C-alpha cells in the first residue's frame, strides 16, 4: 500500500525534525547563555542567527499551512510553525509558555488535527479534498492586513524598556495561585465542559428506545 508507506515516511520525517530541533536547542542553550553576544560575522551574533532561524521556521511553516494543496502537508507545516513559535517564546524568556506550547499544541492539538484528517479523509484523495475558494479575494484581504500590521510594527515608535531576562516559571505559578486564581479555576471548569461536550458531540449515536 503506497499511501500507507508515504504516511509512515512522513511520520518518521516529522519525528526526525522534532528530534533535530530539540537536539539543536539543547546544544545551543549553553552557548546562548554563555556567549549570546559572540559575533559570528560582522554585527551578526549567534543570538541573532537563532532568532532568524526560528522566525523562518515559524513563517515557513505558516506558509506551508496556507499554500499546500495536501492537507497532510498542511498539518506538518503547522508542526514546524508551532515549533518555531515555541522557540521564539524561549527567546522572549517565557520558558514555561514554550514548554506548554510544545506539550499542548504539538502533543495535543496537532495530534487531534492529524486524527481528524485521517478519520475524515481517505488518505489517497486528500489532494482533491483541499480545494480552495475565493483565492483572489482572500489573498487581497490578507495582503492588505499584512501591510497594515507591518506598517504598525515598524513605524510606531514603541517605548521599550530595559529588561532583565530570567526564568519566569516561578512568578507565573505564584500569579496563577494568587492574583489569577479565579480565571485559573474557570479555565479548569471550561476544560471539563469541553471534555464532556466533545465526547457527547463526537460519539456514535445510540438510540434509546
Amino acid at each position, binding site marked *: 500500500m503506497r499511501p500507507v508507506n508515504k504516511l509512515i515516511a512522513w511520520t518518521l520525517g516529522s519525528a526526525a525534525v522534532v528530534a533535530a530541533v530539540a537536539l539543536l536547542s539543547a546544544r545551543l542553550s549553553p552557548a546562548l547563555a554563555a556567549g549570546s553576544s559572540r559575533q559570528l560575522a560582522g554585527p551578526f551574533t549567534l543570538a541573532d542567527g537563532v532568532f532568524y532561524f526560528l522566525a523562518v521556521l515559524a513563517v515557513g511553516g505558516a506558509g506551508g*499551512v496556507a499554500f499546500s494543496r495536501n*492537507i497532510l502537508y*498542511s498539518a506538518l507545516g503547522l508542526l514546524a510553525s508551532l515549533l518555531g513559535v515555541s522557540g521564539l517564546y524561549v*527567546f522572549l524568556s517565557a520558558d514555561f509558555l514554550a514548554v506548554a506550547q510544545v506539550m499542548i*499544541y504539538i502533543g495535543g492539538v496537532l495530534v487531534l488535527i492529524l486524527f481528524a484528517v485521517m478519520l475524515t479523509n481517505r488518505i489517497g484523495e486528500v489532494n482533491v479534498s*483541499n480545494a480552495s475558494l475565493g483565492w483572489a479575494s482572500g489573498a487581497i484581504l490578507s495582503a492588505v492586513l499584512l501591510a497594515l500590521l507591518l506598517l504598525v510594527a515598524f513605524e510606531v515608535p514603541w517605548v521599550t524598556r530595559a529588561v532583565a531576562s530570567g526564568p*519566569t516559571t516561578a512568578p507565573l505559578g505564584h500569579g496563577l495561585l494568587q492574583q489569577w486564581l479565579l480565571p485559573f479555576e474557570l479555565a479548569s471548569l471550561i476544560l471539563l465542559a469541553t471534555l464532556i461536550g466533545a465526547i457527547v458531540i463526537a460519539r456514535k449515536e445510540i438510540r434509546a428506545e
Partner: protein
Amino acid sequence: MVPTLSHFLAVAALLFAAGLFTVLTRRNAVAILMGVELMLNAANLNLVAFNRYVVGGMAGQTFALFVVVLAAAEAAVGLAIVLSIFHTFKTIDVRAADLMRE
C-alpha cells in the same frame, strides 16, 4: 540586526496573515481550524513580546497561557463537530453543512 519588538511583531503579522488566508480560502473544515490555530498563535506571540519589551510583569504571559488552554478546548470541540458533520454529510466541505437553511 538585533531582534527588537518590531521583529517579533513582524513575525506575528506574517503568521496572522497566513492564518487569515487559510481561513478565507479553504473549504476543508480541518484546514480552517488549522488557520484559526495559526491566528491564535500570532496573537499569543504579540502578547508575550509586548509583555517582554513594553509592559513587564507577568500579566501578558498569564494571558497567553489562558489563550493556549482555550485554544486546546476550541480545537477539541471543533474537531468533534467536524467528525459529527462528516458522519452526517459524508464530507467536510463546509458548504455542504447547510441543512438548517432549508
